[in-house]
């Protein structure tokens, strides 16, 4: 690790991750968006990683310096659940910060992922949120209680799911009792049955 000097530009970071993670990284894309009159670039990396290797990837990032985890976003993609961990490396170097957006795909029949709280302790808030909103199980999470949702919220319903574990009926008809009795007629824009 002695040779590596921060800040790394996106290409160097790609090389760094390629060397160490090799096959387990897919679809690595570098994006630079130029802004303002001086056209200073905002640098981003998007990549997909196998969930078995996700922890290793975070460990490799942590060898550079303590990675900043902005948040993990997540969504129901139909056949699988996609989590995107938005990391930031090179903070503290003006204009050099690179957003590393790590995508992990979890199959719906086994939506589990291992915790990264031992490497990035600040990840606990977002991991707890993913459990209650997407029905993801975070293995070895130090605190698995609900964070945002109330105790009375149903156990097997997850607000961000678009399948039968989602919220479709509850959300649309709670305000009107008569309507609640009738089945929903509006089509699901995300490819429900026609």
């Amino acid at each position: 690790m002695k040779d590596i000097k921060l800040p790394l530009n996106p290409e160097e970071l790609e090389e760094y991750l390629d060397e160490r993670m090799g096959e387990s990284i897919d679809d690595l894309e570098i994006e630079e968006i130029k802004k303002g009159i001086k056209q200073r670039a905002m640098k981003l990396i998007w990549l997909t990683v196998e969930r078995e290797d996700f922890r290793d990837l975070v460990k490799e990032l942590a060898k550079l310096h303590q990675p900043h985890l902005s948040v993990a976003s997540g969504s129901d993609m139909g056949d699988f659940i996609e989590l995107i961990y938005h990391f930031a490396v090179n903070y503290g170097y003006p204009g050099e910060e690179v957003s590393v957006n790590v995508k992990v795909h979890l199959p719906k029949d086994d939506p589990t992922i291992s915790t990264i709280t031992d490497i990035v302790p600040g990840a606990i808030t977002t991991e707890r949120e993913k459990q209650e909103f997407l029905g993801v199980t975070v293995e070895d999470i130090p605190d698995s209680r609900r964070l945002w949702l109330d105790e009375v919220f149903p156990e097997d319903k997850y607000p961000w799911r678009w399948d039968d574990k989602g919220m479709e009926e509850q959300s649309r008809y709670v305000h009107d009792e008569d309507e609640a009795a009738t089945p929903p007629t509006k089509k699901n824009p995300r490819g429900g049955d026609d």
Partner: protein
Amino acid sequence: MIEMSEEDTTYQVPIGPIHPALKEPFMINFKLDGETIVDADPHPGMNHRGIEFMGMHRNPLKVIPLSERICGICSIVHQHMYTTAVEHAAGIEPTNRARYIRTIMCELERVHSHVLWAGVAAHEIGFDTHLHFTWKIREKVMDLLEYISGNRVNYSMWTVGGVRRDIPESMHPKIEETLTYYEELYQKLEDIFLGDPSIRLRTKNIGILTKKEALELCGVGPTVRASGVKKDVRIDQPYAAYGDLDLDYVIPSRYGYENTGDVFSKTLVRLKEVVQSIGLIRQCVDQMPDEDIDSEPKKAVLLNKLKKAEGEGIGRIEAPRGEAIHYARLKEGVEELDCWKIRASTYNNLTTYAPMFMGEQIADIPIIAACIDPCIGCMDRAEIVDVSTGKSKSYSHDELHKLSVEKTKKLLEGSL
């Protein structure tokens, strides 16, 4: 996580979750040994309105007014992040003039937010005259925001591809007048918050967050900059027009103070950022290019473009409270947002509460809770349960506030 057993002689003090003056109900469970805090466990979610869920059921332009209503003070912050995330996803470029106007508005909001915070901090330790003073001078920047946007709280300035209102040259004298007003008053603010010995007694060496903790817990904004962490999205990953401007990290060591990470350092960072913001607004006003303010003024065309767009984008910003981020994904042929994730600054700073409260006293709870500038602060109802005897006692917001004020008095009399 707080665990209690029969042998345990500690007290548990839940503080929260509701106070009418606050935007966001919130609760913290404290575990106390006598007067000393040994653990703090935050419980958010009392005001979870499902905004992301709502956003995923309406078209991208209708989400703009929804996004600015996420927070009452950072209404600009959320509009900005949301629109930049959508612009990024759809490949739309705002004009440079729009970027400058956005920057001016963001910085005006920072002045507004920091001055407001200073008042809250003073109130929490019993200096209500300072509360009234800071909130009086805050009116000036709110007047300016109203003069520019037409609104005092939700400014409705942003749109995908630009802004909705221009800042023409005729508005510059009024902006300059406001900036001069704050410059003239700044020394007084510094004398009060950094120079006053009784305020120093209540803020120095209290609520300490070390640099290591700040980094590991992914804290953001003035909360971690006070510990000497150089994290500021405006500099690290410039957005809007910040790439064109001249600015540096505001950390205490730059001004000859130590990076201790206590409440005093956090106050210092916020006050110095007010000065920095004034400078940035001046730079923007001077350098503003002469262009259109909106790259696509026809909203029907824009909406059609967004419906056809496919992609994902992120919008990151340095809000007054620290880094915040939005993620948005658009799907071709679908009018609604496919995915929307909002993350405000307090979300990341939640975890920093535990180390800051550790070892402090009940009377310090209000000021430490306020020092991350949370979108909360609600001390409406607090209950102390003595586990060994089963007795319980309730503390209202007023009683807790009284405790804090009494501590200041005792410190001044020298009896503590």
